[in-house]
């Protein structure tokens, strides 16, 4: 055990954690928006819209996240047309490519979580709203969405933890996140166990916080 290395690498790994957390939070925000849009599309009665949303979530859940990042980072740059548009300023940055891939990926999973939450809402709630003469827009925002959020919290908590682990793939497109820095230190010092303990400890700590935060939110919202 090389304690010195562990102590020396801790600050470096901790500053890389900031990148990890930034990637995580941005992807979760975008992912939630994408997920909500696709969940609503999935519930639509229009076959085309419905199938499109199903296809989206099927493709993103059926392929590894690594492939998705590589397609976006290495693949999209190949399209000449894209290079001339304003989109290129975003797509040439590995940081934004990673965020796009993560957001689409977590969006696909989130849409499934929200869809099942929407579907388990008792029709009685919506009927009660209708019979009270509340407009369907208000029913959606004030009845369906709050209930769906409440019901999907435990599953969404798992998704956040999966996404935290997913952000480690940013290191494959040259980003120095927690895993990226850990790999760099391992490959320069050849002390994998020590670095694994420190970096793994940070990840476990983050998982622990997320887990408890979701538990607290569940309690606050009074699930069950």
């Amino acid at each position, binding site marked *: 055990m090389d304690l010195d290395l562990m102590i020396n690498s801790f600050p470096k790994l901790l500053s890389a954690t900031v990148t990890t957390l930034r990637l995580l939070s941005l992807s979760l925000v975008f992912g939630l928006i994408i997920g909500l849009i696709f969940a609503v599309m999935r519930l639509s009665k229009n076959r085309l819209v419905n199938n499109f949303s199903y296809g989206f979530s099927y493709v993103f859940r*059926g392929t590894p996240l*690594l492939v998705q990042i590589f*397609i976006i980072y290495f693949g999209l*740059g190949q*399209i000449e047309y894209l290079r001339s548009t304003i989109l290129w300023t975003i797509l040439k940055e590995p940081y934004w490519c990673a965020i796009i891939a993560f957001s689409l990926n977590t969006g696909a999973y989130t849409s499934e979580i929200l869809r099942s939450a929407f579907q388990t809402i008792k029709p009685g709630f919506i009927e009660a709203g209708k019979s009270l003469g509340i407009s369907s827009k208000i029913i959606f925002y004030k009845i369906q969405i709050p209930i769906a959020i409440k019901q999907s919290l435990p599953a969404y908590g798992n998704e956040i933890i999966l996404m935290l682990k997913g952000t480690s793939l940013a290191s494959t497109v040259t980003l120095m996140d927690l895993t990226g820095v850990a*790999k760099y230190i391992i490959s320069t010092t050849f002390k994998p166990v020590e670095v*694994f303990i420190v970096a*793994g400890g940070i*990840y*476990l700590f983050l998982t622990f916080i997320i887990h408890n935060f979701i538990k607290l939110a569940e309690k606050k919202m009074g699930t069950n």
Partner: protein
Amino acid sequence: MELLYFGSKGWGDELLTAFLMTIAVSITAMFIGILFSIIFTPLKLSKNKILNFISNFYTTVIRGVPELLVIYLLFFGGSGAVMFVASMFGYNEYIEINAFITGSFAIGIISGAYSTEVFRGAIQSIDRGQFEACKALGFKKIIYFFKVIIPQMLRLAIPNLSNVWQITLKDTSLISVTGLVEIMRQSYIAAGSTRDPLFFYSFAALLYLILTFVSMKILNKLENKYSRGF
């Protein structure tokens, strides 16, 4: 399409080998994972606090740490650990471990943590009465375990186990970082030499989709088979 020709012109045969490699690694990893869970599930259910702690430690750490980090640990530390064990037996030469073994072992450890949780959940959701009935009938422990508990556990475990399989299958893409030539690595090589990453990575995505689709169909059949009578 020329890029997919077989032989020296295209990448068809290379990609096919890589495709088979992904299947081989996934199956090996899943198998190692199930072996791990056969060891750790009883520990998890045991009343001994220390054994309990060991297996909780295993599942918590592996499920809370990114897969890539576990892979790096085994990739950089694997041969060191094996050499350390070998040196205790008086063997001091350099040992290099094959990428296939490191890769399937790393993914196997990860998949084992998930399978352990699945088996634990399945055993715990078997009705207590079943255990008591076996004891009341005076069955031997081995018989009641294999004839009563395991068949019921499998029915409950298979749907979740098929989820673990899907996760394992997708995780194998990560061992491309160790240089094992599976779908992802081969696409990376092909994309680099043809300068056509969009095509090759999309094709890789398609291959993974085929794998997940086909295995879902097979696993659904298996699920139906084990839930006969329910």
